């Protein structure tokens, strides 16, 4: 990868002036992914409905320097499939030249839930595209409703924590593994750029690798949402770090079916570290909810052990 000085000179493809919340992780993720494109490459981007879409394209303004299209909530992958198919046809007939990359961005609601069908279809058909899910663990755009990516026990407006219910009562869907089951050339799970960590450029490196591979690719990026996670914007990357250090969100990639874990913590932190950093899990720290924390820890361990096994580490 280029050094920091070179990176700073690369084109900024998602410019300022958009209306994302202060501290929102999504534009950071988008900009780092787009930085992995060479400056002479043009991006064609489709965007599922969500915070990122609605806040970056307040018509007649746009923050996007590349071709950008939005359709209904469930269709980012289908729309980019259509654009990519049209590009191929135009190229075959000699109507278009130059370097293009096809990218779709969607949040977890638009990807794990309502958009899963079109994502699966696009991946199976094998379009030359990269789908990026910025997973902040709930429908944040409509005011924090649970999604199938919401972690167990999280308090959301449609999984409210109260005297009887502990917040969301299901473990999160493992979308990265669902994508692996599509036998894609490249699937990766990562986090935003966190300075000072051994995995600081994990996101950039994975985007760069994804763009170098032909065919359907998928990246799942844990993205902080200060509003929904009930955290201070200044600490958000520390919180994401805890997701990695507790193995709640392992950094790994699967290239042609071969698993590789990109970071194995020397000492896995207990899940309470990740939970107690966020207001959405506040209720879980009460003594009467200890069994729930235990249950969450067991599930994190189970999934981590399974990943170690798949990667041949254990």
């Amino acid at each position, binding site marked *: 990868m280029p050094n920091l000085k070179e990176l700073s000179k690369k084109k900024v493809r998602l410019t300022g002036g958009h209306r994302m919340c202060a501290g929102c992780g999504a534009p950071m993720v988008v900009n780092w992914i787009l930085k992995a494109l060479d400056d002479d490459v043009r991006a064609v981007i489709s965007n599922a*409905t969500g915070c990122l879409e609605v806040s970056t394209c307040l018509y007649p303004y746009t923050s996007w320097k590349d071709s950008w299209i*939005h359709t*209904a*909530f*469930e269709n980012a992958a289908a729309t980019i499939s259509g654009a990519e198919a049209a590009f191929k046809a135009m190229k075959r007939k000699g109507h278009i030249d130059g370097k293009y990359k096809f990218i779709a961005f969607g949040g977890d*609601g638009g990807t794990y*839930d*309502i958009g*899963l069908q079109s994502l699966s279809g696009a991946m199976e058909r094998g379009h030359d595209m990269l789908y990026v899910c910025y997973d902040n663990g709930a*429908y944040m*755009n*409509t*005011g924090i*409703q*649970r999604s*199938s990516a919401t972690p167990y026990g999280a308090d959301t*407006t*449609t*999984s*409210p924590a*109260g005297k*009887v*219910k502990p917040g969301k009562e299901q473990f999160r869907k493992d979308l990265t593994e669902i994508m692996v089951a599509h036998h894609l050339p490249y699937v990766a799970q990562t986090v935003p750029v966190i300075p000072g960590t051994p995995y600081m450029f994990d996101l950039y490196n994975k985007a760069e690798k994804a763009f170098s591979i032909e065919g359907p690719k998928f990246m799942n990026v844990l993205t902080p949402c200060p509003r929904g996670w009930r955290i201070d914007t200044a600490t958000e990357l520390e919180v994401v770090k805890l997701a990695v250090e507790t193995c709640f969100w392992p950094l790994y990639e699967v290239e042609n079916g071969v698993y590789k874990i990109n970071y194995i913590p020397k000492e896995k932190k207990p899940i309470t570290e990740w939970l107690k950093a966020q207001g959405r899990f506040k209720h879980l720290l009460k003594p009467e909810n200890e069994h729930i924390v235990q249950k969450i820890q067991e599930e994190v361990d189970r999934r981590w052990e399974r990943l170690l096994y798949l990667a041949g580490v254990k």
Partner: protein
Amino acid sequence: MAKKVLMKGNEAIGEAAIHAGCQCFFGYPITPQTEIAAYMARRMPQVGRVFLQAESEVAAINMVYGAAGAGVRVMTSSSSPGISLKSEGISYIAGAELPCVIVNIVRGGPGLGGIQPAQSDYFQATKGGGHGDYRMVVYAPSSVQELVDLVQEAFDVADQYRNPVMIMGDGMLGQMMEPVEFKERQTTRNLPEKTWAANGLRGRKIHNVINSLYLKPEELEAHNKKLQQKYAEIEKNEVKYELYNLENEVDIVIVSYGTLARICKNAIKMLEKEGIKVGLIRPITLWPYPKKAFDEVMDKVKLGFISIEMNEGQMVEDVKLSVNGRKPVFFYGRSGGMVPTPAEIVNKIKEIVGGAK
């Protein structure tokens, strides 16, 4: 008498449904109605009932199909683009003759449109929306109290006719807070027992079948004829409307519904001061359409009727069919989330009245 509480329209919808005996609510987030789902997520478990968040609007409406088929009172809610996704399911529910309540807190369209108040789903709600020859009762409340009353009525009407019923409001109604009273009400309707429900044999020998598939054209036509008879019955019995300022002769009659009708009432008061007499027909059921209201007031109208809408004139056709050539029909509309002010309406009417003089 129950005491009045100050409540947001969306939350009042949820509470009204609970009062009406709604056992299951299936939701999905979309602005400006997400508070209905959030309210139900909190309240339904408290009263031992079911709240489920679906993975899409398509899933939510088909959950409604399942629960309605089992014979329980069930509701779902969404806003315009989400109702488009639900339309397939609504058609199936109408075809299979299942009772349910669907709430549409309308936003401006087409496409993603906006999130501000609009009435641009009039065609979708009253002329089909989904495929096939079906009809659905559509209520258009204009205050939070009326919203509450109509949600309760909607469940009764749905059960009586085994038909989907829609409550159509807009973001203004959904988001605004007004005092409401949840009256202890006894239905005066003779609601049939749900002997058709697929909820176990219960001693019967023959299975109940819930179905909308008829491969033999003769059978499908017979099914359609039966549905049409039911719709004719609904048209005869269930029309609701309000007449305002129509006791005496007027220069012109506004036809307007929902929150916009309240704005029109203000305009009427302003015009009164300038010596222009204006009445209002406020359809409360958009289907069945209150055609008879027009017959009732026809002799009192000097100039004609004006349909005032928050869309580009979707209701004009129904107004024209009701007027049936007896008087001219005018139109004034704003769309895309623009809400007309009373002054705008006053100006438009003065233009027509002035021109006609």
